[in-house]
């Protein structure tokens, strides 16, 4: 185990996330509707409409990190929801039926928005929730972007954004404020730009920041994106990362290798993985996952650019596009190998990884490995099996360097 120098910004994170949950609890009392959102969906519209956005996926990740996803899931499984479903969804549905709430209760929605850019599971979970909590539900439908983005699909998404805004005007009883939307989009742009600058420092050798740091510091880009708070946070974080770099405080001691990682971290095992990789002098430098929040909006065409950004997120792209994206990251960050986590909770990122492993290995000549587990539910984690996959991989990294 190596000695970590804690990030000063971690204190700010604690404060910010505390405020976020407090705000959620307060919103309902103050008559501000709580809107459930999927992580990759146009929260900017929700902020501009004056609602409080809440991300149940975060709840699933938190339950995973606190190692209670399996317990919450049992309440859902008792109703006939299979343990093969997404663990986040099982945590959310389980919390609805559970009598004990060891990580606090999920913030109940007044209205639910889902976008299926990420997957088809989130809409199904949110449909269930809309019936359970008896609240309205609105889906933004994102057809898969098979090849080049099609104008007609962007237009379809744009029409739905207009339907969503009309719906929000009905809910709030006030006209939608497009000037406020532009402000929010500007703040999102800033936060995303700064977040990506932080992520990019993982390409330095040695690097002051890596994927496991990003997994910790990503909460505000998800939850506070579109606010000044997120901008302030990532400005502070960028400053601190640069200072640490100057002071010689690196993400891992003696970085020998960098690897690319797909996709979501294994929340209950974050520390275990970060120490395992560090012990092999291997920095997990980059993942598509943490780069999901790389939006860039055109303030002159707010709705059109919201449509393009949220429809064309990588997880909604073709097999070949996603292979190319991995190749680009591997090249940009100077990776020496790659690790693909086949996440049984996430069909839309897990499916295809075995073929992709072969293709990426063939195109780069780099060692790569796929392992099976679950992002939140430890019942599907076998240390022995994962080590059985990763240890030979570390050996390959070392022998490739010789």
């Amino acid at each position, binding site marked *: 185990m190596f000695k970590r120098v804690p990030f000063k910004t971690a204190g700010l994170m604690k404060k910010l996330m505390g405020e976020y949950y407090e705000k959620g609890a307060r919103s309902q009392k103050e008559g501000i509707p709580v809107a459930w959102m999927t992580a990759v969906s146009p929260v900017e519209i929700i902020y501009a409409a004056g609602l409080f956005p809440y991300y149940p996926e975060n709840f699933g990740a938190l339950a995973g990190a606190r190692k209670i996803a399996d317990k919450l899931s049992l309440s859902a499984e008792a109703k006939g929801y299979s343990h093969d479903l997404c663990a986040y969804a099982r945590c959310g549905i389980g919390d609805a039926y559970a009598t004990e709430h060891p990580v606090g209760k999920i913030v109940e929605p007044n209205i639910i928005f889902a976008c299926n850019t990420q997957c*088809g*599971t989130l809409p*199904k979970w949110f449909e269930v929730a809309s019936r359970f909590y008896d609240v309205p539900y609105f889906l933004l439908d994102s057809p898969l972007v098979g090849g080049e983005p*099609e104008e007609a699909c962007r237009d*379809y998404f744009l029409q739905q954004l207009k339907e969503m805004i009309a719906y929000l005007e009905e809910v709030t009883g006030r006209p939608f404020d497009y000037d406020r939307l532009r402000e929010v989009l500007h703040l999102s742009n800033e936060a995303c730009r700064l977040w990506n600058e932080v992520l990019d420092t993982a390409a330095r050798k040695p690097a002051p920041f890596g994927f496991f740091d990003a997994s910790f510091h990503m909460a505000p880009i998800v939850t506070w994106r579109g606010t000044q708070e997120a901008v302030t946070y990532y400005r502070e974080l960028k400053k601190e990362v640069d200072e640490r770099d100057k002071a010689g405080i690196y993400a891992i001691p003696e970085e020998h290798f960098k690897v690319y990682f797909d996709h979501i971290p294994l929340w209950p095992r974050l520390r275990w993985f970060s120490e395992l990789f560090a012990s092999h002098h291997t920095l997990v430098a980059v993942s598509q996952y943490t780069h999901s929040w790389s939006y860039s909006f055109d303030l002159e065409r707010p709705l059109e650019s919201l449509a393009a950004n949220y429809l064309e997120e990588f997880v909604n792209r073709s097999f070949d596009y996603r292979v190319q994206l991995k190749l680009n990251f591997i090249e940009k960050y100077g990776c020496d190998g790659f690790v693909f986590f086949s996440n*049984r909770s996430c069909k839309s990122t897990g499916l295809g990884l075995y*073929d992709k492993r072969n293709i990426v290995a063939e195109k780069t000549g780099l060692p790569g490995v796929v392992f099976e587990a679950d992002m939140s539910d430890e019942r599907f984690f076998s240390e022995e099996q994962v080590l059985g996959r990763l240890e030979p991989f570390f050996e390959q990294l070392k022998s490739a360097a010789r």
Partner: protein
Amino acid sequence: MHKEEIIEFLQKVVEKPDWKVREWKEQEKGKAVGFLLTDVPEELIHAAGFFPYGISGGRARMEFADAHLQSWTCSFVRSSLSLALEGKLDFLDGLIIPQTCDTTRNVSGIWQHANPLPFLQEYRLPRQVDRPSARNYLIYELNRLKEELEKFSGRKITEEKIKESIALYNDNRNLLARLFVLHEQNPAAISNRELYTIIEAALLMPVEILNKYLNGLIEALENEEAAPKSKIRLFISGTLLEPLEILDFIDENGGLVVGDDLKNGSRYIDAQVQTNDDPLAALADRQLKRIPGAFYDPPHNPRRHFLVKTARDKKVQGVIFLHLRNCEPENYDFYDNMQALEESGIPAIRIETEFVTAPSGQIRTRVEAFLEMIGGEGNV
């Protein structure tokens, strides 16, 4: 032709699923375009001059798919890809995959790498169905699919041609629907297993020929004297009817399937296509008004109301949820559906299945026990 001969012939089509398609290709020197079940506009494939071939999975050697699809992928998709990799679908020149879940949404890229085809298209159904934007988008997507089919065939698909195909498939749906009615009226004349075997055959043979057989069969059945016999009335709910043997267990225990919402059952024949409209808009409208399914549904889950209403209208005594393991959309709605039936006092069981092996004795036992429970001795 006698009833028995027709049924025997259609059973043979199902037993040898590549028989008719290979024969057609040989005779017509044409190409076959497969589709995964079943929300695909077969009419367009037919109008393009191709043989539409419904891949309904099967008892495949799953190890072929293991290198490409994780064990948690649904066995319908795993077995379909396995069949392709085994070479059992080598007559296909193309494939259309309707995107109805995360697995069908992600499998096209995998398929194209594992088993490349000259023509592979995703059919990107809208996921929301109750706002005006859905219909406009669906018409766009149908038009895109039509253009891709035209590129592959090198021929224009005229409006005339689509309308002819629509008429043929409307006939087909009417004939199959008529069979359902005759089955319900006179179960002794056509069993559960025979009825659903015929739907399966419909996925595997030219519609023109099938319609002739169906006309003959219906004529024979209509002339058959009804042998009234009290039966336990059942509804089967799920994605796909697998294994077909479950129908034998139902037949042997005095059950009569009077309705279902399966892709290789009533969902295949449910709604008709209007013939006086713009044909693509008419195809879109059919898709939008089909019976509710978990993968394609407004959020308030009208399926549960549909189940209760159908069960009442058809005097159903019990509902069998036939669920494919790892079918996510179906699983998410199961609890609500079960609740709705419970509240209405309609007994139901859930049986989980997989396209792996022949059905276990456990399935037989559960079907028997359920029928005994809901039917009692007097009814059988």
